[in-house]
């Protein structure tokens, strides 16, 4: 059976840039996080695909760790967002404007 490896990579790249675009454009902190999740997910797909291309297990294991890291980061991120929301009463990223210049 044959799916060109490039296609898988294209898919991954597509997802990755979609995530990046989301992170670039959205103002809501949650949505930015979602974008980041998408990016990591794209990385996961790429890993799995590459693992299959090289017939090598390491790639798949890598994905596991990426998921772990993602989970950890999300946890902290949500906690921070809560903090921020407590102070400013908003989850709008543009409210992060004390520090500039």
């Amino acid at each position, binding site marked *: 059976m044959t799916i060109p490896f490039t296609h898988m990579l294209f898919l991954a790249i597509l997802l990755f840039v979609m995530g990046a675009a989301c992170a670039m454009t959205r103002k*809501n902190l949650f949505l930015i996080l979602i974008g980041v999740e998408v990016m990591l997910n794209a990385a996961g797909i790429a890993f*799995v695909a590459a693992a299959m291309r090289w*017939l090598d297990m390491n790639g798949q294991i890598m994905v596991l760790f990426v998921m772990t890291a993602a989970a950890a980061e999300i946890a902290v991120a949500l906690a921070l967002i809560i903090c921020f929301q407590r102070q400013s009463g908003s989850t709008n990223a543009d409210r992060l404007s004390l520090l500039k210049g």
Partner: protein
Amino acid sequence: MTVFNIIFYIAAAIVVGATGLAITRKQVVHAVCYLVISFMGTAVLFYILGAPLLAALEVIIYAGGIMVLFLFVVMMVKDTPPSIDKPSRVKRWLPAMILAGTSALISGLLVFADPGNRLRPPIVTGTPQEFGNILFKDYWFPVEIASLLLLAALIGAHYLGRRADHPEDTP
């Protein structure tokens, strides 16, 4: 053109579509729901790309865990003004689109230019057994690190989640 291919492309389409919807929603909740769909699709992809365990984990951790956590927090935080923002403003999307487009194109080009990528790999399934073996034989050291990572995350989340005026902090 085997069934696998068809499934792959369908799943890929679903993933891309769902993601596209997810990143363009006004409401965070909607975005999360679409994202869950895209993760499901990803799980399918994982499965047919020979990573059944990862497929399961994807569903459990991502769709099941992280997204639910997301939803909880979204519910918990009462957003004033409610976290609706208008994604459809060109001046905000256009530069992002251009950047994303160019990087996607060039990345694609680079990927495509590599003859090593052209081949069509055969499907072999990595069974959970060997996954586990390798993980805990060769990769226990990273596992330990990951545990520390999670510990740090735990501590941090707990610390930040607490109210600032917690009696313990005031010396």
